[in-house]
């Protein structure tokens, strides 16, 4: 499976540039016509394959991209046993760098602890097991020689800032100049981007605007009480959703499924916390166009909703 090989490659190289990552993706996925690579490639017609892989690896906490100390590229995170308290026990997921030998050690240490290796499409194998208490987790981590992190989703969420509107201290921005920019406004009712003219964007008192130009990353601007602020897409989106009183989050306590519209993906680290509840990427339902995160306990769902400034229904 290509995703496993890519993670081994990343683990062996430890860190590198964005260009090297893209080249590695191209090289690994260029071999043969394996079904998995075909599937991934077919899905990625609209969205570049390397971007999809990057986001998946980030969500699963294997690699950090463009973070501190890897501003221009990527760096693999140290292997960590990520724990999450479930009603049935503590679920532990192997995150970060891995080698065949490390995986073998984890397997040997957790054979009797409900070890399972899942192979979701497009991402490395999800290695996870269940322990009854923290002491067992400590023993396993010591035996394998890994870090461990208790209550990872909760720990991540505890330190994340909420999606709040820009404060007075926030630096004002201006829309980029030039006629080449294609401008879209986010339609809160339709949950879609619609094209508008620059003058309309400038006249808007409240709104989220996307500026696109060829070969550059899109830029997102929030018009908020007359000011213009450049914000991360997800933050600006949820600020606007709160303002428009659009409630999008759903939570089913019985199945522990947390869902939201695919176009309203949460901020990256918040999504990482949700993904690390199960270790699996969110499932996409094409009929409802919603993403569903599984095994999200109620306290995590409430905290995530609080950070997104959305009520949970």
């Amino acid at each position, binding site marked *: 499976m290509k995703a496993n*090989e890519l993670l*081994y*490659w990343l*683990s*062996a190289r*430890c860190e590198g540039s964005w*260009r090297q990552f*893209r*080249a590695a993706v*191209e*090289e690994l*996925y*260029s*071999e*043969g016509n394996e*079904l998995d690579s*075909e*599937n991934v*490639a*077919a899905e990625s017609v609209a969205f570049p394959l390397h971007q999809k892989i990057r986001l998946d690896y980030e969500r699963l*906490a*294997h*690699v950090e991209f463009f*973070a*501190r*100390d890897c501003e221009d590229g990527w*760096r693999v*995170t*140290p*292997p*960590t046993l990520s724990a999450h*308290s479930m009603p049935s026990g503590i679920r532990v997921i192997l995150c*970060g*760098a891995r*080698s*065949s*030998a*490390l995986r073998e050690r984890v397997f040997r240490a957790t054979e009797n602890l409900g070890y399972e290796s899942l192979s979701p499409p497009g991402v490395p194998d999800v290695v996870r097991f269940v322990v009854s208490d923290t002491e067992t987790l400590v023993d396993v981590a010591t035996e394998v020689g890994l*870090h461990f*992190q*208790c*209550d*990872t989703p*909760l*720990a*991540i969420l*505890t*330190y*994340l*800032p*909420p999606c*709040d509107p820009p404060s007075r201290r926030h630096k004002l921005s201006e829309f980029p100049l030039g006629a080449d920019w294609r401008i879209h406004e986010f339609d809160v009712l339709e949950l879609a981007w619609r094209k508008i003219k620059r003058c309309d964007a400038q006249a808007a008192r409240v709104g989220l605007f996307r500026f696109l130009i*060829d*070969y550059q990353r899109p830029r997102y601007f929030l018009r908020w009480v007359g000011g213009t602020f450049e914000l991360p897409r997800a933050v600006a989106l949820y600020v606007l959703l709160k303002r428009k009183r659009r409630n999008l989050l759903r939570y089913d306590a019985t199945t522990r499924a947390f869902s939201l519209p695919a176009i309203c993906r949460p901020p990256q680290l918040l999504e990482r916390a949700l993904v*690390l509840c199960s270790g699996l990427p969110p499932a996409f339902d094409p009929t409802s166009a919603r993403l569903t995160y599984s095994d999200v306990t109620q*306290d995590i769902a*409430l*905290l995530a909703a*609080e*950070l997104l400034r959305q009520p949970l229904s």
Partner: protein
Amino acid sequence: MNRMFLIILLIIGFLCVGLVWFARKRRRDLFTRQANQTQVGDERTTGTVFQEQAEPSEIVRKEQAPVPEMYPTALHADDGEKAESADVREVISGPQEAHETNPSGVQSQSPLELLSTTPVEEPLIQTGTGEPASLEHPPTIIDEPALFRPVLPQVEPCEDPAISSPATEKRADAVISVEHEDPNEGLRPVAEAPEELAKNSGQRRGRRTNAEDRFTKTGVEEQEQRSKPEPEGAIAILESQPATPPSYSGLAPVPHTVRPQPARRDNDQQTSSTGTSLNVRVQLTFDRHGGLRTLALVPDRRDGMPEELDIYGSQGELRLIEFRDDCYEPVPITNVGKTLSEGVEWRGRDDARRWRWVLSGRQLYVFARGDECGLHGFVSTSRLCLNAPHVILMSRDLRDEVLAALAKAGCGNPEVSDDTMPGVPPDWLLVHDVKPTNTVPMREEAHILNALCPLPDVEPHFIGGIRLQARMWLVGYPPCIRFTGALGNVKVMIDGQPAHIAADGAFDAPGWDNEGEHRLWFGGQSITYSLRVMDEVWDRWHAHDLNAGASICGAGINRRGAAPRFHVRVPAANPLIIGAVPGEVFHCRQRKDIRCNTFLSWVPFEPVWALPFDSAHVDKRSARILLIHPMEPIAAVATFKGNRAATLTHAKWIAVINDASRKQLSLAAENEDSKALWCRYRAVAKHLWRKMR
């Protein structure tokens, strides 16, 4: 009297300034007329020199001095000038390098020799208008504001900064035209020139290179081109109108040599390359149904080239973005049929250099699997290789000839798809499953169908695996070793042991994929490759600093600060944590910006109990005492008489337990062990309280 004298002086001064201004204006007018009348090639011999004025962004030009004389002038200035122009000597790198590497050569060369030793691709200078202008000959001055100092007097503003560009264009074209006459270059008719230049680039200035020799062969042609009068505005025409890409003339036979082909281009060898002409490969990928998914152009890249580059050409204006060391990101082809048949020519430049990418137009394209060069799908190649899968894209007119040629090459009955297949351009055919098994001699003359004549050349290929470096793979994920060409009786050995061919066509031998270096022998050639194990050294770092005393790295939360702390999951209703040692009390402060039932906090001791913040005033029906981690209380502690702070923490620890006891709060987990433990804590607290009274 004095006033009159001053007035006279002022008048004389004004007159002098006016005269100087008039003289300069006349010279400028004269120069402009010369520039308009004089052809560009002649300018070389008149020795137009670009110089930088004190204004850093403006390039000015000095005329009169012939080129050969400029070297001594610039390089061997008086000591006083040297002191002033030390920085200038740095930027006049061309002649200085020449002087340093071959001190006698530069000064003794004739003007013609100097011209011939000029590299094919010259650095450009940035003009005041922002338009780079190519220097036909040294000295070269690059726009580095801090480095520029005036060296020579009598400088004039450059009115036509790009005046020398056409000559460069012509010269590049001249080289390319010669390269095109060499049909042996196959799909890369112009790519050899920069490669050869690259080998010699470090010594360009000092001695003649092969490419330069070839350039001088075209001197007559170039001189003829130069002698034609250049119409005004020709530069603009050259810049705005994309040049017509050359047409492909076909392959011609070359002497058979068995040479190992590197698995991927070793870009390190081209470190100093500033190649003018680069290659464009065509990449095609298939979807799961076998249809053409994408057709893209992959422009070559050399070391030292910018990561992003704006280019213009047959496809209009584009921006190339670095993809790997050796290529830019694939550019999807629009109007596929026209692009493939007419070819592509792109031009781009930065402040100092210019590049040209050429894909000659043709009616027949041969594609090989791209995994060898690290690209997805199939990538255009010069000709068929034996025993390797290929795809062919051809014009409908060539159908019969191509199929006959493929049959001759032992390709069986390949599947032919016409333009009804998604992605295939109109009037083109796509031939799948082409795997030649016979060698076919090429025609004596250059012919397009020579691309379908597989040669017996034996070439090893390392395919797949997890490649860590150029010829290093990860243990457990070695490459497949395959050969193309007429392997026949060629003996293949790995580490001195005969290699066996497996069912999938890959060669292996005992221990061929063990850790360490291995040597592959074939047909008198050898190549080494190595495998290594992964070093499991991965450090934590503060990847996402959230300004909350902690940072996130992957799935781990790192706390800033050296003191060890314990991560505790705290219910919002029980923020008061106590430890086993009297005095260990910690209030976990909940975030005020969010409401939550549970949160995590760092505690400076191992937590045992979590209690409500004010046990004495809580609703005992809902408030609970939560056992976090069972630990026996430590009763034998000294009282801190005289240490007010320690006494207060002790008192706090005792008070918290006593308050909860008096309130008769229930335990969250009602079991005998926890009840007994809580009783022991109460006993210790009561004992200490009495002791402290």
